[in-house]
């Protein structure tokens, strides 16, 4: 369980997050949605200790993320940001191997090699394993990073806009793979996501943010209502039932 307790963060005088309280239960996929500047990525960064909150506490499995040793936390929780600047020239396999660092501190054993092969296989990257990252397309590279995160084998997986750079086909397959990771491997997946229809179809819980506050939290059926979404996004949105799914129409 991730408990977000009274988190605030401000830059100079503007609040990016204001007294945020929320609980993300174990298991399933939770999507964080909201307009630009709502504080979604900031919240994800604070949960994953990439940013320090000005006030409040985040607890993951009752561990305070700000004070728990980083290497211990790395075996409970993994996070992937949207921008990954890298200077090293790494192969896909080498990158995925870094997922084992919290356990092995660099020396890979046969069990690690098996897990690396599994993660590569899970994201259909086996044929690219010896390619360098800069030789891959944006989508393949994104999958390679997700494979590293899965190889880290943590209970909680936090992803900041994992569908960025992905086309329709790869977006769908990424969401299916995350769904599979949640259902088969029992991971708790938390996503920041812009496309509310992906959030509607694939998540178990939606957390909606606006102006630095959590304004709604509930199942997709609760949140995918025209009145609620219009309040969050300040734009006319209609909900249609398509193939048994709530789909927002806002074009």
């Amino acid at each position, binding site marked *: 369980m991730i408990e977000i307790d009274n988190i605030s963060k401000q830059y100079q005088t503007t609040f990016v997050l204001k007294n945020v309280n929320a609980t993300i239960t174990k298991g399933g996929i939770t999507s964080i949605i909201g307009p630009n500047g709502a504080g979604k990525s900031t919240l994800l960064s604070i949960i*994953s200790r990439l940013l320090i909150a000005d006030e409040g506490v985040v607890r993951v499995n009752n561990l305070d993320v700000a004070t728990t040793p980083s*290497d211990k936390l790395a075996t409970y929780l993994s996070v992937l940001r949207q921008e990954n*600047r890298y200077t090293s020239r790494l192969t896909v396999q080498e990158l995925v191997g870094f997922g084992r660092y919290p356990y092995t501190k660099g020396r890979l054993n046969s069990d690690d090699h098996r897990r690396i092969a599994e993660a590569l296989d899970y994201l259909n990257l086996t044929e690219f394993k010896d390619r360098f990252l800069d030789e891959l397309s944006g989508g393949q590279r994104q999958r390679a990073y997700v494979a590293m995160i899965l190889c880290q084998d943590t209970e909680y997986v936090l992803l900041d806009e994992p569908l960025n750079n992905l086309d329709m086909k790869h977006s769908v397959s990424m969401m299916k793979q995350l769904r599979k990771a949640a259902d088969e491997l029992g991971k708790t997946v938390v996503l920041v996501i812009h496309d509310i229809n992906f959030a509607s179809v694939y998540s178990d819980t939606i957390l909606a943010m606006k102006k630095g506050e959590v304004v709604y939290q509930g199942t997709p059926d609760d949140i995918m209502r025209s009145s609620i979404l219009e309040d969050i996004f300040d734009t006319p949105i209609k909900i249609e039932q398509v193939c048994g799914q709530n789909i927002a129409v806002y074009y």
Partner: protein
Amino acid sequence: MQIEQISHLSSPKRLIFLAILALCCILFFMTINLKGNIHYILVDRSWILLTMILVAFCAAASTLLFQTVTNNRILTPALMGIEPLFILIQTVVVFFIDSQGIPFIGTIGKFICESTLLILFSLFLYRGLFTRLKQNLYLVLMIGIILGTLFRSFSNLLQRLMTPSEFAIIQSRIFATFTQAEPALIIASVVIAIAAGIILWRMRFRFDVLALGRDNAINLGISYRRSVTTILMLVSILVAISTALVGPFTFLGLLIANLAYSISGSSQHRYLLPTAFLLGVIFLVGGQMVLQHLLNMSGTLPIVVEFIGGLLFIFLLLKKVTM
């Protein structure tokens, strides 16, 4: 044809190849033109050789670590002003302590004091820069160059106010030469460099993770702030050794680190660190041998290395612009 063959070699084999090349350079350097008092010449050359090996190690390790922690292949400790800062500290020490006749603490004692000051000042000045301003390379580079200029101008000012005898002490330190280091200082440097080498070899896997960038490093359980502090301290010590021994070498580190990235065929620090070190030995020892004995131009090695390194720096900057 030869390059073709190298490109098929694995990283450990490339390392062995470089090690053999470096050993050849050392052998030639020690044995070429042996005339007159052989014992005297050999002892003299051994000290110079040891100094060059130390400088190669310091330049390679400090630059690689600095570039790993800043995630950037253009910045070096020298360009960011750490080297001018050390020269300023040395100048200030000569200006205020040597001239006042405060109890003389010996070369090694003075070196340790100056290095400690460098560590403290560089932690104070650069730690914030690493953790906050990383997004904008040009801004960081400009801050570094401005700091470097500030330190250099301040050193210049003090040097002008000195008595000629004091200036003579400092003069040997502001131009790179391989001949003036004191044996006691060299021995002390060897000990410190070996200690630093052991520490950084134990951290080699952590450097690989840090090279993935701050966010990924924290995700994988690295305590980022502590790693940055440790690396800055190591870099400061290495810069202090190299500058105290031979004077400022602005572009040597940049040159060998960037060559190591392309030659080692790996981004793992267990290959990068030795590769850059061996390249440094080949450049310095081989270069000194060729210049001194074949071209009869002793004392010009720093100029040649700086010239090539400076060209590489301009090339890297231009490449970055077009990217």
